[in-house]
């Protein structure tokens, strides 16, 4: 009889970039603030640039409200408030975690990762320490529903991710049969901030509101030319897994 318990966490998956950094290792522009980036020179002659902090924040609040509903509106406004106050740090929210748990994009992402994990887990003879670290893709929320309900504006595409095994238990008889069970814990990281590419992409938007593009510019100006501070959003999702070994 073999009995094994590992509390963990044991790292089994990781995205190809870390929070706060680009794939190439340079710092991510959407996490910088009060830096007046050279490539954003055109915004200095935009009509939004002369607006007060209060006017810009009001625009950003309108943006959050127009692209979120229900619990996600609460989350979006909390995030905007944290941003405008310059708190920085890491933002966590149970409401946001629940929203991700119920999202179809997460379900598809989870099954794709699980397939790879199970292949390696079986090859490692059910020893999680021998699985290694599997490269993870980036979960993104791009459906029409995500765009109108809140995950689009608050997260859109996660920046980084990791997967860990916790509370692993294996019981096997000498003949090899038995069972295993563990929690697979996903942690996703995103940047609540904008880079110049976001303004290039969204600065002319007139949907869902005529001034949506201006509100994106307000967000960018507050972050890169005024006193607002971007922050890391951390989201967690725990999945219980168990199976008999024949």
């Amino acid at each position, binding site marked *: 009889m073999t009995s094994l318990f590992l509390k963990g966490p044991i790292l089994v998956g990781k995205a*190809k970039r870390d929070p706060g950094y*680009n*794939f*190439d*290792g*340079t710092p991510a*522009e*959407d996490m910088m603030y009060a830096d007046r*980036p*050279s*490539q954003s020179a055109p915004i200095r002659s935009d009509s939004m640039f002369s607006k007060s902090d209060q006017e810009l924040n009001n625009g950003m609040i309108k943006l959050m409200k127009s692209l979120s509903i229900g619990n996600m509106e609460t989350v979006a406004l909390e995030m905007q408030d944290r941003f405008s106050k310059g708190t920085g740090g890491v933002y966590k929210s149970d409401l946001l975690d629940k929203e991700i748990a119920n999202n179809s994009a997460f379900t598809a992402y989870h099954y794709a990762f699980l397939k790879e994990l199970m292949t390696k887990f079986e090859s490692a003879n059910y020893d999680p320490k021998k699985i290694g670290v599997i*490269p993870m*893709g*980036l979960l*993104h929320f*791009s459906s029409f529903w995500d765009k109108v309900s809140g995950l689009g504006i608050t997260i859109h*595409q996660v920046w980084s991710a990791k997967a860990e095994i916790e509370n692993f238990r294996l019981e096997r008889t000498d003949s090899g049969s038995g069972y295993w069970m563990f929690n697979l814990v996903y942690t996703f990281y995103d940047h609540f901030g904008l*880079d*110049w*590419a*976001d303004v*290039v992409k969204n600065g002319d938007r007139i949907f869902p509101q005529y001034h949506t593009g201006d509100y994106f510019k307000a967000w960018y100006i507050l972050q890169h030319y005024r006193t607002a501070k971007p922050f890391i959003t951390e989201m967690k999702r725990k999945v219980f897994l168990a199976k008999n070994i024949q």
Partner: protein
Amino acid sequence: MNVIKLFAIVFCIFLLFSCDDISPGVDEETIHLMPLSPYKYEFSNQYGKNRIDYFFTDNDYQDNAGFREKLYKSVKKVKNEVDFQYNLYSIYVYKKTTRLNENFLGDNNDLRGVYNNDLISYSRWNQGNIDIFYLIEDGKVVFDMIKNDQVSPSWEFD
């Protein structure tokens, strides 16, 4: 005398063909990658020294195996000429446009985010091992060369 002249002509023709054969990056097996300003960007962090090289090419992104293979060979050829082992070594390949060409004088900040829609590929060597080779179309990652598979759904390269 005529024999000497004939020999000289034959020798010149031979030289011409030889030069054509050894010209870098113009054979049919690869795609001609031309250096794009800022050409090379080196920086250090807690993990060590990192480097980014920038190129542009006349070719547009093409969704076929032949193009992918040629691009892969061309990028690897560039990497093979770098003898130092960086912590991260990245290569960006853009398509030639009216703004991104041999006359472009911008730095890495001028490129980042502004020209993502003109990116064709991003590849990375981590501690000397290739771990990323994305093909990018309209700013979205559409093909993973490491997995040799389409990326579906595609996602924004940012």
